[in-house]
């Protein structure tokens, strides 16, 4: 246990949390947690803008990527980890809570469903002679919402991407691809929802004489956070006299990687209208200070 616990140290920003430059989420904390291999860094992870590898970019910026395994040591001396973060959603704001104690971070499965129908003329083809892949995609989107709403607590499902081909106003879409993002605190429940939506798409496609196929992309298991730290945070939040709640994080955070090695938890403070990843992102300084206070008092109680 370190002698002095400074807020700055515990909040040490991981190098790449957002995953935009290399299309890899949580890259810095995954390196620290040993969740990558050297081939990823040397070849597979490439910058979106210029296609150069992470390795080349790190060297150009004056770092020594060949020593990447040594990063893991920065976790060696830690007996606990707490990450304070804005919520990036509206749950705290809408429920009137000023602090959220995070006891689990949702795992996620990313994938694609591609539906193959037939591109025919919009005027010449009667409704009952069509193989419209966009209709199956639309049905699948609506079904995913139903599945997520009726699934276990904290499960969410999203279709963020769609490509309908050929994409002309007077042509029936012959092929449509949609992305899937399914998250939740319970991995078997996520797998069940993904299996259910893939099965639904196949049946909905077959019912219209089409074929649908699911292909997995990236996935990360759910992370249950350390009960002792969670209890300490809840106690400190209660002692603050301000309204708080215990919740899961739907978004992925660096803590997911750190928690593989170190007992960890997270604390959320509200952000205005849940807005994040835009210049309109804003949290009240007083809420930030309250979060720091709760964290500090929890750490004092733990050590």
């Amino acid at each position, binding site marked *: 246990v370190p002698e002095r616990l400074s807020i700055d140290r515990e909040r040490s920003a991981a190098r790449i949390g957002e995953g935009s430059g290399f299309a890899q989420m949580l890259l810095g904390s995954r390196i620290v947690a040993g969740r990558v291999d050297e081939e990823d860094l040397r070849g597979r992870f490439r910058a979106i803008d210029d296609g150069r590898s992470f390795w080349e970019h790190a060297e150009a910026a004056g770092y020594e990527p060949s020593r990447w395994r040594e990063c893991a040591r920065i976790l060696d001396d830690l007996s606990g980890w707490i990450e304070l973060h804005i*919520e*990036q*959603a*509206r*749950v705290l704001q*809408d429920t009137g809570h000023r602090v959220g104690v995070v006891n689990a971070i*949702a795992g*996620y499965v*990313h994938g694609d469903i591609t539906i193959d129908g037939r591109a*025919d*003329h*919009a*005027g*010449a*083809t*009667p*409704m*009952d*002679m069509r193989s*419209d892949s*966009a*209709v199956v*995609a*639309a*049905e699948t*989107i*609506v079904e995913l*919402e139903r599945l*997520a*709403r009726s699934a276990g607590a*904290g499960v*969410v*499902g*999203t*279709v*963020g*991407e*769609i490509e*309908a081909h*050929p*994409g*002309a*106003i*007077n*042509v*029936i*879409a012959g092929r449509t691809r949609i*992305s*899937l*993002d399914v*998250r939740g605190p319970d991995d078997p429940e996520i797998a069940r929802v993904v299996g259910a939506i893939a099965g639904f798409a196949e049946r909905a496609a077959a019912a219209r004489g089409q074929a649908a196929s699911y292909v997995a*992309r990236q996935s990360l298991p759910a992370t249950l956070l350390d009960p002792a730290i969670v209890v300490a945070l809840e106690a400190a939040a209660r002692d603050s006299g301000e309204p708080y709640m215990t919740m899961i*994080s*739907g*978004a*992925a955070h660096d803590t997911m990687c750190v928690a593989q090695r170190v007992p960890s938890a997270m604390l959320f403070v509200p952000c205005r209208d*849940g*807005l*994040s*990843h835009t210049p309109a992102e804003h949290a009240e300084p007083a809420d930030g200070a309250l979060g720091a206070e709760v964290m500090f008092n929890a750490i004092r109680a733990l050590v």
Partner: protein
Amino acid sequence: MVRADGARAVAGLRDLGARTSDERGAQRLAWTSTWGEARAWLRDELAQIEGVSVRVDVAGNLWAMLPGASSRTVVLGGHLDSVPNGGWLDGALNVVGALEVLRALATAPQPLTVRLVDWADEEGARFGRSLLGSSACAGTLDPGSICDLTDAQGIRLAGALAEWGVDVHRMPEACAERSDVVAYLELHIEQGPVLERLGLPLGVVLGTFGVQRHRLWFRGAHAHAGSTPMDLRRDAFLAAARSAIAFRDDAAGRVEARATTGIVQVSPGIVTAFNGACEISLDQRALDDTVLREMLASARQASERISAEEGCTVEWQPLLETPPVPFDAELIERADAVVDRVAGSSVRLPSGALHDATEMARVVPTVMLFVRSIGGISHTAAEDTDEADLELSVRALDELARDTIARLAVR
């Protein structure tokens, strides 16, 4: 009585195709030298028919006239122009079929005058304005709206047509061509799957669909796919998907109606966020104007109800609105009887695509015959129809022309 020779029509189509196509398909783009070669071929064929005279009108339409006892005229129409890399039958079947009917009719005196017309620029593939020659004849062409159209090379329509002796501003004078016309008949490949699915070679066209085309903007608010619970979302894409299904279900529950959403675009369009904005297209078609209006009203209502349920708004932008054009009821009856006789069985079906007959139907009694398309494919080199069906379709056009002439001659 000499009947139109279907086999000769097929041979003529093969000959025309060989002269005006390459390995990618037919290249009879209007106002190009290849189109000119197609017309030269047609003129050579017409020159072999005794008593037939040929001229080109102010709109660039080519007319062949077989004078009869009366100046009242039955017109058989088609178009030799094709899309780039097009098929061998679209438009050309109508012209070559009519050519063989004219050749047969010319062997005996006719009570009415018969004319064949090769409409100029049906496809609009070069300048983007389709039904050019037929709309000039029907009186629906506004020269001011087309002179400044340009092709891919930046050449202006007015300049290109001037090279073919057509003064854009005088094109509406082509209305004079229809002064004595009492019926307009057109044979065409179906370009769709209906006849093939029904197992029938020929059908009678009820008219061309009216079209309502709109662009719809659904707006909610995008946010993180992980951190936002399902019940706090304003997912514009979900509102659009539910609406598109409602549009489709509405059309599927009606007779002879279509609804298609062919374009969908989402923003931000990334896997880890639900979408705050979604744009979709809606293309609705129906043969009955009241039905088409009902469909539009029902779609608007559904999109607004669903948007409200999803915490979103929806905005409609009209893109295109054309009313349905039904064909002549009496000609439909007669054509149905002819097809029944020639093919053993007939069916009446709407046309999804626009045709020159759509323009003519506005001003003279009109009907079309469809012959089945293999796989419903058109506008590509793969466009095809069995030769036996083609021969049958020319026979049906021949009988319909004779039936129409005989019927109208006694009025």
